[in-house]
């Protein structure tokens, strides 16, 4: 995602995040996602997470966690950080192309 953002930045001459800033954004989103899942576990909504052991709530960091929670939120944050009329669709295209090459 970060590489796609940098390619976009180069093509569109638009200021996007530095690596340090990108990591901090990721960290803050991650923290919030885990907090929300842990809260769900405490509230007894074991849809996305499970509470085991009775003590501290546990959150499963599995593929579903990335697919449903972390990546969509990070993606939405990045897409709204660039100009929506031109850069955002181009970011999706670049990102799609990079995913295809994985």
């Amino acid at each position: 995602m970060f590489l796609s953002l940098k390619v976009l930045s180069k093509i569109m001459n638009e200021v996007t995040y530095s690596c340090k800033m990108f990591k901090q954004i990721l960290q803050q989103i991650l923290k919030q996602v885990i907090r929300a899942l842990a809260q769900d576990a405490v509230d007894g909504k074991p849809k996305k997470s499970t509470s085991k052991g009775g003590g501290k709530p546990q959150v499963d960091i599995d593929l579903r966690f990335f697919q449903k929670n972390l990546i969509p939120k990070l993606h939405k944050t990045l897409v709204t950080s660039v100009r929506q009329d031109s850069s955002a669709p181009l970011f999706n295209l670049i990102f799609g192309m990079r995913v295809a090459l994985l």
Partner: protein
Amino acid sequence: MSFFFQQLLLLQGFQDWRKTELDFVEMDTAIPKKRLTELTKALDKLYPAFGKKFTEKLEADLGQAFLYKDASLYIFKLFKDPTFKGLSLVQEICLGFLCPDHEFKSKLTQFVYQQLSEVFDFSEEYSRLHQFLSRASWKHPIALLSVSHVNMINTLASIAQHYGVGLDVIRTDQEADKIAAEQRRGVNIRVDNIIRSNLLDQTAVAMQSREQRYQRLQTMATSYLKTGNICSDKAATLSKLNFIQNSQRQQFDNPDKSISEAREEDPVRVIERSARTGSWVLVSTIRFPQFWKRVCNKLEQMRQEDKIDDQFRLVFDLQGYAQNDISDAFLFDHAVSFHLTEQNTEEFQGYDDIWSTILDERVLIKLGDKIEALRAKLVEDSKPKMPEDGSGVEEASSQSSA
């Protein structure tokens, strides 16, 4: 991938690939011969198994100077042909560069959805401001870039009220006001002249002949302008050409300054206090705030000490600023950006107030249409009707008088 992006960037308006109402090429025009030759060569090389066969068949049936609209239909049929039926979507897209029509655009959309949906829950919908604000406990400033008709103070006040948090609005930037005042007094004129003269490439100017300059250009890693200054360089980025615009902006007086003559509290201190107590701060000043760096340093320090409350949000309203007004470093390394446009407007109470609605371009266009329709109707009504029996003249005259 390199072929794809090389070709994509050659298309006019490539960034508008998602807009179905626009075409990359004029469909009534013929494909330039040079472009066809280059594409044919590249496709032959990229897909040795079928690339040559595809382009040869296209040229054999349509000729070397085909119109895009003819190629559009033909390529559509060709992909259905048993010879080329098993092609993947990427292959069809790459071959589609021969005629980038609406079908080509729809394939790009299909490709993006296909690829991204495999990895995560992909949606093209942009998140709204309140969703963004609650997505994380943002401990960095939020650079809010919004379209002109949105009343940001109203919107943010509504969201803050919805979440039950306090909101402070900073409208004055004393440092910027001071700079503006000093400039008007002429204190900074000499400094400005120095900056202006520094924009000239002194090294290139000092060289004697043009040959010498070119020689220097080739030997040095840095590129020099041959003549003039940064303003005469066509390749210069917009952010470099900000001198005149910035100085014009500095001439504006701060309308809020006259409200209170008393010295206000330092905005950094207000932000620091809100960061500790967990309320929101909106910085909405007439010029890009000069205190941004001090604020960022303070927040950095507080982050390290873990003294920022999770509820705290700091929003810099950058509405109406030109790109060159906003510090690149701020957007690059210190803030989380958020663009608010017609596509992700808020539905909170307060947003749809009369002033923001009346300035919305879409509403203005609709109003314009309505006025035109009303005018046309009035003109139509005022015309005298000519009935068959000829008695309508009186009626028409009575109507017009009414």
